[in-house]
């Protein structure tokens, strides 16, 4: 089957999925937090659009629900909350450049290849045109993971976490037309609670080390395991 034989909706799904992958790269490379939040919102929009288009292609109402949840949560609510946190912590101009950008991007490209390899046996058993989006979604998940590893800024790590969630949603949409509604709502609830907790944590971290650079959170590894005196109890 060639790409040209696909209905236009499916082609659009592929294009949007590829753009979601690009947004994962952009998120990884974006050093300015404010811009990164915007990239994240775009990524959410792309994922929601994929869900909605697949819904239109298959007539599955469940997918519209997924799209609506994603739109509400990942495009509007969570970016808004992050935005507010950024303002509250006065981090609007904060940048968190990657230590080794070229190396990171190479690793990211390798991850995409790896994701394709891992997802190949899964995709093999699906006959719909959009099955290869599974590989893309796994790549988005793993790129989010990479982002959490290479970034030092707590907020950037949270963006990585949320990007992983985007990838998971894309995976669910692409492979199984979404999870059952109750599970989807549960996941959305967990993500929302996680976001609220992240917000609480930012304030706690800021209070305790006056920065959101989590590299400075090295009390435990530095003092407790070695011979030094631990933190005196207040």
């Amino acid at each position, binding site marked *: 089957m060639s790409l040209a034989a696909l209905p236009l909706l499916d082609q659009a799904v592929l294009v949007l999925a590829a753009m979601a992958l690009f947004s994962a790269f952009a998120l990884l490379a974006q050093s300015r937090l404010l811009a990164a939040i915007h990239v994240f919102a775009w990524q959410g929009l792309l994922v929601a659009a994929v869900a909605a288009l697949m819904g239109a292609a298959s007539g599955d109402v469940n997918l519209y629900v997924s799209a609506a949840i994603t739109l509400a949560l990942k495009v509007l609510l969570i970016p808004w909350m992050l935005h507010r946190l950024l303002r509250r912590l006065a981090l609007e101009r904060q940048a968190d450049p990657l230590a080794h950008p070229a190396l990171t991007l190479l690793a990211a490209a390798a991850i995409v290849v790896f994701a394709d390899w891992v997802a190949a046996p899964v995709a093999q058993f699906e006959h719909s045109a959009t099955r290869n989006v599974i590989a893309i979604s796994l790549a988005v*998940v793993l790129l989010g993971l990479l982002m959490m590893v290479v970034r030092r800024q707590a907020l950037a790590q949270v963006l990585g976490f949320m990007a992983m969630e985007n990838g998971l949603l894309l995976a669910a949409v692409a492979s199984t037309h979404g999870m059952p509604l109750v599970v989807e709502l549960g996941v959305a609830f967990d993500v929302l609670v996680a976001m609220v907790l992240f917000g609480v*944590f930012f304030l706690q971290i800021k209070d305790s080390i006056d920065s959101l650079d989590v590299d400075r*959170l090295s009390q435990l590894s530095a003092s407790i395991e070695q011979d030094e005196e631990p933190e005196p109890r207040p």
Partner: protein
Amino acid sequence: MMWIVLAVFTPLLGVPLLALLPRARVAGWVNLGLSALSLAGALGLAAQVLMHGTLAAHGFRVDAFNVYLVVLTAFVGLTTAVFSRPYMHYVHAEEKRVGARGMRLYHSMYQGFLFTMLLALTTDNLGILWVAVEGATLATVLLVSLYRTPAAIEAAWKYFILCGVGIAQALFGTVALYFAAQHVLPAGANGLSWSTLYAIAPQLEPRVMVVAFVFLLVGYGTKVGLVPLHSWLPDAHSEGPTPMSAVLSGLLLNVALYAVVRMKMLTDAALASSATPGLAGHLLMGFGLLTFLTAVISLHRRRDIKRLFSYSSIEHMGLMSFGFGVGGPLATFAALLHMLVHALTKSSIFVTVGHATHIARTQRIERIRGLIRTQPAVGWGLLLGVAAIAGFPPFGIFTSEFLLLAATMQAWPWLTPLLVLGLVVACAGLFRSAQPMVFGAAPPGQYPVRANMLPVALHLALVLLLGIAIPAALAHWLDQATRLITGSGLL
């Protein structure tokens, strides 16, 4: 059904109730009462399952495998609540490390945590299982940072991020599993229901199941504390309040392992006729052994008492994973028994450790000295707890480890010396730290604290009982569970 509601949803009721209850002193009692109600529900459920066999209705499923874990969870929840009431009161009123709001959060989230644990155990839906396990992280993460010290915040952040990353992999695995199910099931069937999946497992596509299992193992394995992803565990245990350490070690790890084993059952069935029938077991064995050995080495030269015992938890989780990985009725029976006795012993140890740290006013091992002189009950509790966890004969852990070694001898004889060596090294590491804490010279100015050793005594007595004679009903259950997991019983 009524019992399920009582057991599982009583804690859920407690979440808003305790969040709104202003009096910390009352909240402690309410916490205890709710946990007791939940235990009553769990016992009722157990009686039902004992009489009628597997219960499956309305998206819940209680069979031999999870019913004893439900009872265990509710029981440890209750005893820890008994311990937590005076302990947290001391932390709140005398040490002043936690304010009134913190206490409300603590009690509310304690019940929230119990709810997620019980929900994860009783639900039939693998998606809900995921939601509940993730919910358990969310409920406990703020408790780990309850003391607001930089170290506590770091521990909580690490816990949050690492478990968040791990659990995301588990969701991907769940999606892959659902995907495999959709290709077999007719439209409209619930492809995430474990009962449904188990019935059709042999038809599930093996290659998809391998991918799904690897992701699920990584995901839930992070929560179990399997080795490359275990580093959150000692931090979270050492920095959170001690009752939290007790339930984390005693319950959360068990529930995560329970999830892994449920997935393994599906994968084994799907792979049975493929080229690699034992793949899931081998993976679990490999990670289990790696975890066990790493933790055994890490047991030495610890400086923080709670970190010491959290490494011991990692060690035992490694052993259990190894046991489930070896497969076969004997090893599985041993691992199931080990889940039970380890949870009981470890939570009793953390209760004792909580008292010990209040006596010595520090968690540093070298400053905790002479407990048996200052407060004999705590000293004896620690000594017996350590003896039990190290696998000394009359206790239940000896039984389960012995069974596990016997099973290993049958299946993988050349791994047995490695396991024995590991157990000996672990025992040495534990006693090396515990001996001076119990028998050393007590520093001047060390006074006894008000300690309720009832939970410890109860737990250790149960472990002792299980070591000497396993009650027939329990043996029957464990045998049923073994039959469920491996296909053939032991008894």
